């Protein structure tokens, strides 16, 4: 109960931080939808079956987009908040990097996940003349599960990013490469190699497959996918928590160089 109260308090703070940055969120939303339309309209048009292409790639894009935001939000947090001493205040109050990730996760999943997905789906259906029944998920329950599953995955991706950015000297430019790499398993479905299980190296693959399953375009068998999710998703939260502690220990002991 105490933990849950703490989580809700953090999310409450995150909601108010997001309200301050409302104009940036709206701009980011429109911006990302336009970029995705620019890149994915030709991808759809070149595919044999436009509807199948939509139902395969766009749910993957939803997951990739959230993973990408987890990476960029973490790097921003470390760069600005460590520089301004805010992480010290966090630590003095018993909160670590994980706590920061929790403050924004619901907003990022809602804005960059659900809202941008909805706008993109409407935009692409208009561009490519895809009917509304094909755009909507066939199984809304599975789609909702995928959206909820984005939360632990966001936390894991964010904490891994925090650890790599803290202990190594990589610049944030290289984080963009990581944002491109997570396309494998999300936008690119795990059917291009003989063993699909290799794609599980990317933690986002399970969530992308869940989202694709809501349209009936999953590569993994549905039962296997659900069993994998039950094991993996709680594990993601635990692993994310411990990785965050490690990066926080590193920051408190050695600090963090302010770098781009």
């Amino acid at each position, binding site marked *: 109960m105490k933990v849950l109260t703490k989580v809700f308090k953090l999310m409450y703070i995150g909601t108010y931080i997001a309200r301050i940055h409302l*104009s*940036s969120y709206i*701009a980011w939303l*429109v*911006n990302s939808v*336009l*970029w995705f*339309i*620019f*890149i994915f*309209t*030709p*991808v*759809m*048009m*070149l*595919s*044999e*079956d436009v509807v*199948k*292409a939509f139902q*395969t*790639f766009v749910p993957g894009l939803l997951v990739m987009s959230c993973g990408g935001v987890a990476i960029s939000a973490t790097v921003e947090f470390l760069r600005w908040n460590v520089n301004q001493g805010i992480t010290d205040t966090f630590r003095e109050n018993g909160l670590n990097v994980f706590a920061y990730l929790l403050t924004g996760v619901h907003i990022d999943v809602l804005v960059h996940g659900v809202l941008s997905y909805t706008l993109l789906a409407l935009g692409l259906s*208009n*561009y490519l003349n895809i009917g509304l029944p094909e755009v909507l998920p066939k199984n809304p329950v599975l789609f909702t599960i995928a959206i909820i599953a984005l939360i632990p995955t966001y936390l894991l991706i964010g904490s891994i990013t925090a650890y790599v950015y803290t202990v190594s000297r990589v*610049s944030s*430019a*290289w984080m*963009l*490469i990581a944002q*491109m790499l997570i*396309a494998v398993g999300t*936008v*690119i*479905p795990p*059917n*291009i190699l003989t063993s699909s299980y290799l794609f599980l190296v990317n933690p986002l693959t399970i969530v992308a497959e869940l989202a694709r399953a809501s349209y009936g375009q999953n590569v993994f068998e549905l039962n296997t996918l659900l069993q994998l999710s039950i094991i993996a998703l709680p594990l993601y939260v635990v692993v994310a928590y411990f990785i965050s502690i490690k990066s926080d220990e590193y920051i408190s002991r050695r600090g963090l160089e302010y770098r*781009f």
Partner: protein
Amino acid sequence: MIIGLLNIVLALTYRELVWFRRFLADYVVSWVFTAFISLSIILIPMSISDVGVVISRFSSLVGVELDLGTALLVSVLLSSIVPVVAVCVNDVAHTIFAEFKFIDVGPLILESTTLKYYLLANAFVRSSLMTLGITAYLLPVLTYVLSSYGILVFLIVELSLQISAMVLGLYTTLVASLITFYTNVSRPWVIANLLPPLILSGSGIYIPTYVVPLILRVFAYVTPVPYVSKVLQVVAICLSLPEVLTFLTIATILLTSYLLVTTVFSTRLEFRVRR
């Protein structure tokens, strides 16, 4: 007067070269990002479709029968416009926002030169040098694929992109100056960040423009991006001189018009800012 302009050009060139060294990692990432886009557009559909179907659909979009290698080359050349638009618009605008709105070095600039010269030099030098840096990867790629003919293709592509970048630089200068000096927007970069995807998605580039909604086309057709994408498409397949000349004519008209408007606008702006 000429010496004054030359000094600003030299100062901006020096700063750009220093920044190129400092932000080399970002340039490398942009090369990788561009390659990623160009390959993704052709290869991602292949994960659920037959290779032959993807190539034949791409051929019908381009209007010429292509094989996989040529299709990839067309895609690589078409995607080269993406970082040019992103970088020119963002960086020219952000320089104006930063120097006159946030860091406030505007008075220092006005003491050393005229606002008109500074804005024009910023539009030309930044766009031109950044385009050179951001498209440098094309030379080894084209030389590898097309051997010595690749150098000629690179020169034509670079010339087309350079002219486009300059027009984009002037276009952005107008927009950024209006925002900086005539409004009180607290986060002006939000508008600048929105322009590249608006221009790119309005231009079609990979898709026929009739698919693109009219509202987006309006943003794109006042820039050279839709026209340069035709040149990039043609140059990858065969060297069609009429296409290149048509583009050069349109680009020269656009460049002259923007130069005229920006010169008149910045002269009037100078009076307002100094007062």
